[in-house]
């Protein structure tokens, strides 16, 4: 039986008086996942761009995949289990809310479900993954009305919750296996059983500054053979995936560029001021969650500003806060708090830029020709010059 036939045969259960009518959102999501909808345009424009939200979100997933695979390679099969748990719980909550609200299921959880394990320590017990994603999706998203209406990045809310509730587990990291085949076929134990607390490059840096040990070499940061959260270690793969995201235009370059730029500038200033206390900007860019945050978290269009100018300010705000938290506070990593802080400010930033835009628009119609002269003779003629010159020459 063809897939289309299958859906046609079972469709009636979910519609109208069907036995499973309450599950209609789930049914429709699955059907439209498998088969593109038959809907037609009802009014102009009669044709539409092929991009839809599914495709849009899947671009983020494709961009994240290299880093996720690196996580699997370095930290073992548990990573896959964490992703599976995150998707299962996050998806279940999304479905439950869609059913209760009688709304369609949104594809946003496809991104959250993958992004969330990427920012967790690879040794975290699976039940904590489940709890974290549940909290993140519930409080970070559904409370606000679901995808498109949330103020905060749900994955970061989930992580923030876990970091406060279970500080020990959230600070237990695993040393990566460098030699081939890594941990591709290994299951590394959970934090509670093995209690492996290896320093991440950033916590190591704090020790170095305090006067002991060596800084993690930049080459290790590039390849990712360092301890840290699942998806944040391999700088090269993050950059590859992130640049892909920017090229597709799904991630906006403004946020990423200004975030990394502001961060690098502030780190440079700090480093120049006191090289003994502050490590160089390149090292900081590649270490920790900076790249993951800049390419995949801050670019979330829903929780960031909409306006182009706002995106520059937003990125810069996050970059500066992240540098300040990393270097001048007791925390070793500041990207998560910096982005959440940015999320808080995003609506305010937008407000400022939208007001500016509206003020510019309000002037639009009033570009009055100078009085007394017929219009078109005041030099505000658009594109006129060249053509007239050429015509005169001939």
């Amino acid at each position: 039986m063809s897939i289309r036939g299958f859906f046609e045969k079972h469709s009636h259960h979910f519609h109208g008086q069907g036995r499973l009518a309450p599950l209609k959102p789930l049914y429709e999501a699955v059907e439209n996942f498998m088969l593109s909808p038959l809907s037609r345009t009802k009014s102009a424009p009669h044709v539409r761009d092929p991009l839809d939200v599914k495709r849009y979100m899947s671009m983020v997933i494709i961009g994240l995949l290299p880093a996720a695979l690196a996580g699997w390679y370095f930290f073992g099969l548990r990573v896959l289990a964490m992703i599976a748990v995150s998707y299962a719980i996050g998806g279940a909550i999304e479905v439950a809310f869609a059913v209760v609200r009688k709304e369609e299921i949104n594809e946003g959880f496809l991104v959250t479900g993958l992004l969330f394990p990427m920012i967790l320590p690879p040794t975290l017990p699976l039940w904590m993954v489940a709890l974290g994603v549940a909290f993140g999706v519930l409080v970070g998203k559904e409370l606000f009305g679901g995808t498109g209406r949330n103020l905060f990045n749900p994955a970061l809310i989930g992580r923030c919750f876990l970091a406060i509730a279970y500080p020990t587990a959230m600070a237990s990291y695993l040393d990566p296996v460098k030699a081939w085949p890594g941990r591709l076929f290994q299951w590394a134990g959970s934090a509670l059983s093995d209690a492996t607390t290896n320093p991440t490059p950033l916590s190591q840096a704090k020790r170095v500054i305090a006067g002991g040990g060596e800084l993690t070499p930049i080459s290790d940061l590039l390849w990712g053979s360092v301890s840290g959260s699942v998806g944040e270690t391999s700088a090269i793969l993050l950059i590859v995936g992130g640049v892909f995201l920017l090229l597709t235009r799904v991630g906006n370059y403004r946020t990423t560029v200004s975030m990394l730029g502001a961060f690098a500038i502030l780190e440079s200033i700090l480093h120049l001021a006191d090289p003994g206390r502050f490590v160089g900007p390149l090292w900081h860019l590649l270490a920790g969650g900076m790249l993951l945050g800049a390419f995949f978290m801050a670019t979330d269009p829903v929780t960031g500003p909409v306006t182009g100018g706002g995106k520059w300010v937003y990125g810069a705000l996050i970059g500066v806060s992240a540098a300040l938290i990393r270097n001048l506070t007791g925390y070793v990593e500041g990207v998560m708090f910096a982005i959440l802080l940015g999320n808080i400010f995003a609506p305010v930033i937008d407000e400022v830029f939208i007001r500016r835009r509206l003020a510019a628009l309000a002037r639009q119609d009033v570009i009055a020709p100078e009085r007394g002269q017929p219009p078109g003779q005041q030099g505000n003629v658009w594109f006129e010059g060249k053509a007239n010159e050429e015509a005169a020459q001939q």
Partner: protein
Amino acid sequence: MKKVRGGYDIRLAGRPSRTIQQIVPPQRLLLPRRTRRFLFGQACVEEGARVKAGDVLARDGKNFDLPLVAPMGGTVSWTAQADHAVLGELEPPACEEQATPVHAPSGGETAAKRRQLVDLGAWAFVEDAYSGKLPDPQGTPAAVIVSTLRLEPYQARGDVQMMESLLGFIRGLEHLQSLLEYQPIYLLFPNVRSEFAQQVRQQLRGHAWIKLVEVPLLYPHDNMLLCARRLGFRRDQIVWTLGPDAVLAVDAALTHGRSVSSRVISLGGPGVKVPVHLRVTFGHPLEELTAGRLEESECRVINGGALNGYDATAAGQLGVDIECQGLTIVPENVERELLGWTRPGLDRRSYSNSYLSALRGSFDERMTTAMRGERRPCISCSFCEEVCPTGVMPHLIHKLLYADRLEDVERSRVDLCMDCGLCAFVCPSKIELREDMHEARRRIETELHAAEEH
């Protein structure tokens, strides 16, 4: 040079070639009494009356008694089709020399010339830039804008219409100038060094009163409202806008004292086998026009372009109306693709670069009427803002409208919108932004401003 804001070429398959095809004259004419701007409500001839080419069939009382002119001689029926004037038992068209009354007003009399334009129906092709309505023929415009381009896929190309009779076009411009005092005539021009552009420049040598204005070849920068605004005209000013066919109609009316009975329209879009330009008589039945020219599948016949036109069948139009610029044929969506959203997409062109086609050079895409996705809440991707040529923020207006904040919607300048439809085209959440903008303007008009008056 001012930076161009927004705009996007959607590159629809079925671009009409430059050739103008002659077609078999129809057996009967179905003249729609309802067009986009007009309603020819007052019948001027009786049922069953015999009319000559050029006779007035009906008038639009709300638009300066604009006449609906019989394109050919025949027998009139008002009742055969609702909302249409049907002309049967057509006379073969007379030779051009013998055609109807010739009393071209000689010089001077501007008012008489203008009246003649109305009487012969040529005035129907003139549009006011801001209101989009028929301007008062006896009014004084701030300027006249003549466009040689039409960038929406697909309307009759300006250069095709113009090259048919370059001499008539220039003469028409001269006639237009004789209607004005000192007001300038702007000629919108593509900013390319094409042969066509050179040729017209040659012809216009010495016509210093025509100002050439270069316009980028990027939809919708040919839009008359947008151009009028860019040229510095305000909302309260009247700006006459004309296409090449309108200028030719002016020429026909004032040089030969003839009304126009046919027009070059485009027949394009992915549903057409051989996209071309056609010279059609007004009232040519759409069915005859499209018979044998369309693809096998079910197609939507759009009067106008794919972004802005309307479904002619749904509007009950049976023949080519006098405002028709072109017919765009788009196949209806009948296919459900398996895992469509995961396709690599070498053949689908997207404003975003999230399909493999981004690696490919420019190409025309064979689109259907598919929505290509499900309706979702706005994800603030800001694509609509990027493509908008006027600088308004469609996503903001959508959200404000949803929250019923009409005053704020008005402050967001929804009135600047000129209906190009690009916002709704690019929206990945498939929000009907073009409709939202319409609704916003309508509600501001009826609720906000009506309340103020009381």
